[in-house]
């Protein structure tokens, strides 16, 4: 899962990144609003965590400009805790709100909940025909039998589910799974996709020649 943290305090950023990477998240960071906004608009993230008080730009402003183009789940992390602050941030398009100082465990649960909601109305198990995906345990079953997917295949499957019924290009897949890693080319993506389709069944994801892939539900 791809996360973006926009936070100007390096000490906070440091433990957030460390803790979340430990939980197998891909964590990207931005230390000010401008870079954060740029990254949020350019890249594909599953959840964005943002601090309200940023040195250059108000967090609310960043959220508003992200919301004009994307509906990526956003969690506001802030020291401002009055009701009016909460109202203002929810109105600007925030999906969740956590007041500093917070429990790391709670942040984790909230991020996961936001992610689940963006995949699938918030439930832990996603069912597509005879395919069952347990987000909590990361188990994938077909006709009741467990299928072993590697990390990239699993992430690719969730990415396709999240963008169901849309054509997803090679570029988008590369960006989501590998970011700027240079040696990754369309061949690597094609192989990963081939393996995933072989394991879960070709009927789930269709290959649209020279354009990309589509998961239809």
């Amino acid at each position, binding site marked *: 899962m791809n996360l973006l943290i926009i936070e*100007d*305090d390096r*000490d*906070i950023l440091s*433990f957030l990144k460390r803790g979340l990477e430990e939980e197998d998240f891909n964590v990207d960071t931005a230390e000010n609003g401008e870079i954060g906004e740029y990254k949020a608009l350019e890249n594909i993230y599953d959840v964005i965590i943002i601090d309200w008080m940023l*040195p250059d730009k108000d967090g609310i402003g960043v959220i508003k400009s992200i919301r004009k183009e994307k509906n990526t789940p956003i969690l506001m992390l802030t020291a401002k805790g009055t009701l009016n602050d909460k109202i203002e941030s929810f109105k600007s398009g925030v999906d969740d709100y956590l007041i500093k100082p917070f*429990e790391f465990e709670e942040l984790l649960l909230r991020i996961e909940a936001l992610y689940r909601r963006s995949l699938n109305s918030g439930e832990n198990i996603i069912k597509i025909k005879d395919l069952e995906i347990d987000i909590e345990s990361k188990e994938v079953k077909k006709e009741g039998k467990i299928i072993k997917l590697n990390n990239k295949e699993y992430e690719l499957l969730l990415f396709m589910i999240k963008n169901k019924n849309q054509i997803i290009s090679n570029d988008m897949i590369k960006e989501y799974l590998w970011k700027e890693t240079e040696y990754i080319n369309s061949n690597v993506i094609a192989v990963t996709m081939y393996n995933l389709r072989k394991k879960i069944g070709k009927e789930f994801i269709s290959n649209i020649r020279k354009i990309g892939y589509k998961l239809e539900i």
Partner: protein
Amino acid sequence: MKFNSLRIKLLFWFGGILFILLVIFSFLFYNILNSNINYKIKEKLFNIAINLKLNPNLIKNYSNYEIEIYKNNKLILKKGKTDLKNLSSKIFQTFEDGEYINAIYTLNIPQKQEKIIVYKKHIIDKIEDIVEIMIILESILFISLLTLANLLINKILFQIKAITKSAKNISVNNFSSKIPLPKNNDELKELTFEFNNMIERLQDGIERIEEFNSNVSHELRTPLTVLKGEISLALRKDRNINYYKNTLSKALEEIKKIENIINSLLLLVEFSKINIQKNFKKVNLDEILLQVIENYSNFAKEKNIKIYIKKLESIECLTNEKMIFIVFSNLLDNALKYTPNNKNIYISLYKDNQIHFIIEDEGIGIEKDKLNKITKRFYRIEKSQKGFGLGLSIVKNIVNLLDAKMKIESVPNKGTKVEIELL
């Protein structure tokens, strides 16, 4: 209605003074009236006596009078039964007779040994009737004036009651009620105006305290977040010793930051005009400045920032040494923090009409719309450096308490110039 209320007091004083004035007036009126009537009677009787002296035969014409006329000490003419000669030894005298007044006048002409005595019974009603009417009229006047006064007092008290009502509604949480200004341009309007002003000032003060509290709590939350985050992260799994050591040293660092914030808060609590001005003494500003620059020389060396002293005069002034020290330190600290490595800082201290302290940096600068925020909201431009954002706020506070002025000019990416003007 309370007995010690302003209304009762005013009515009591007004009524009392009015009553005394009316009594004095009545007394004077009575006396003047009395002497005036006596004079008129005397004049009338005198005229009759003169007429009789010229022509005693006219005695028949004065049918209502009793008259005795003497010549050579002998009674030559008499009218009436009363023995007039022994009635009065005075020239003119009045006697009260029931509800009436009797009057006697004796005209003596000693050379001719002539004497004419004129006496009139029941010459006039006594003036008691007039006095009675006067007392009734005065009572009516007294009561109506008192009622009128009460109405006027009500009109004045209405405004005071409005002020009282508004004052009752004002609390720390509610400054919304303002008193409507009266139309008349009087002292009450002035009072109301000033009262409203006071409400505004209090509101402003409370807002500043609230803002300050929220900023302080924000300042405290950041290190607390790191503390809580690092510790809870360390406790999630079994870690190696180095991980724990790392977490503990980070925790210690954050605790130091919290300590710093609390120390600065205590400093802010000490700040009151009286406290600061009590400790005014002659201070060498140049000495303090050089001391501060020396204190920060290591920090400057670390970042390879050169501090240039553009202008330095020996200036002695009456002020609070500790506060000046904090101002210089905080401003230099800020300049060093926000200036990138290998750049310069310029400092001037000189005196013309006022004392000027100027510190210019080649730092990241502040955008125009943030210049106001920077002192108001403990705002930090780039919070990546260690330290905390109370610095400039403290400077602003001290500058106000010393009755000095602070100007900030800044161009983004070029630098910031802060000028302090002391009187």
